[in-house]
């Protein structure tokens, strides 16, 4: 999960954009219900990294510009049991490249618990 933070006061920042996409995936993570209309992110965005690779490139399409964020991570899998199947964990999250001015990794383990992994300061 990515959180947008105001550099001035450290509070959650509301971001307006067209969409967020990931290289290699057909899905668009955030977009307005109407084409060519802006969507509003209230402080955070829940994105899915590629579980079959060790890096994912996200593109944030804002009203006037486009910014990218490339993250790296390690995959780990554990077989739990015949009934429960296996569990996959991504860890060692790092920011490989970005066009954002200030980015910080606050949690290196990716999970579905909706805790912030990366903070982006505007």
């Amino acid at each position, binding site marked *: 999960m990515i959180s947008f933070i105001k550099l001035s006061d450290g509070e959650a920042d509301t971001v307006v954009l067209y969409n967020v996409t990931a290289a290699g*995936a057909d*899905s668009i993570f955030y977009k307005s219900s109407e084409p060519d209309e802006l969507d509003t992110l209230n402080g955070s965005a829940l994105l899915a990294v590629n*579980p079959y690779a060790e890096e994912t490139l996200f593109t944030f399409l804002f009203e006037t510009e486009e910014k990218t964020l490339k993250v790296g991570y*390690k995959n780990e*899998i554990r*077989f739990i049991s*015949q009934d429960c199947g*296996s569990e*996959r964990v991504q860890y060692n999250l790092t920011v490989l490249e970005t066009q954002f001015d200030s980015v910080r990794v606050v949690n290196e383990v990716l999970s579905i618990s909706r805790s912030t992994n990366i903070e982006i300061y505007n």
Partner: protein
Amino acid sequence: MKSIINIVFFIFPLALCAQKADTVKKKERDFFPTGIRVGTDVISLIRTQTDVSFSGYEFNADVDFYRYYLAVDIGKWERQFSTDPEDYHNTGNYFRVGVDVNFLKKDTDKSMFFFGMRYGRGTYSENLTVTTTDPVWGNNTITYTNTDVAASWGELTTGLRVKMWKFFWMGYTARYKFGLNTNEPRGFVSHDVPGYGKTENQSTWGFNYQLMFRIPVRKKK
């Protein structure tokens, strides 16, 4: 005169004690082995026939050194868990070596009630094939493999060995296993270690029921 009597009274019992000590001959401990016991674990053989996810066998041997027994176990273990989207397979070998202390050393049949300890070590390979259904990234089937992984652990043991007929013995061993250490690379966490069990258990119990034959090497003095 009184002092002479006192000396006689003091020395006389000492002389009696000395004579008594001379008559009690201390029996020397005999550390030379009298026989080798070899056998197999019946539970592993039954599980192989009844549990579709398990296949394995184990051989056991021990040799006596007075009340101490050098014990060695060698085994093979294979696990297979197949579900619709996933398939886990593990195969490997293991051994344990340690010492048991017999608390029935006066038993003429050399039956045993023992406590002991073991060092266990296993080497194995495992693979996991997973078909993932991801709404964003699509479906994919990946096989993860760990090859020639080494594992080690410790055990505290207790059990019985009873002579049934001539050279034929039966017994059991209960094991408290602990301190598992594996050296697989990160990426695929080991699920099962031959001779130990599931890696998620930092300590676990094991049980063997053994049929054994004792081969006498020499008669006990």
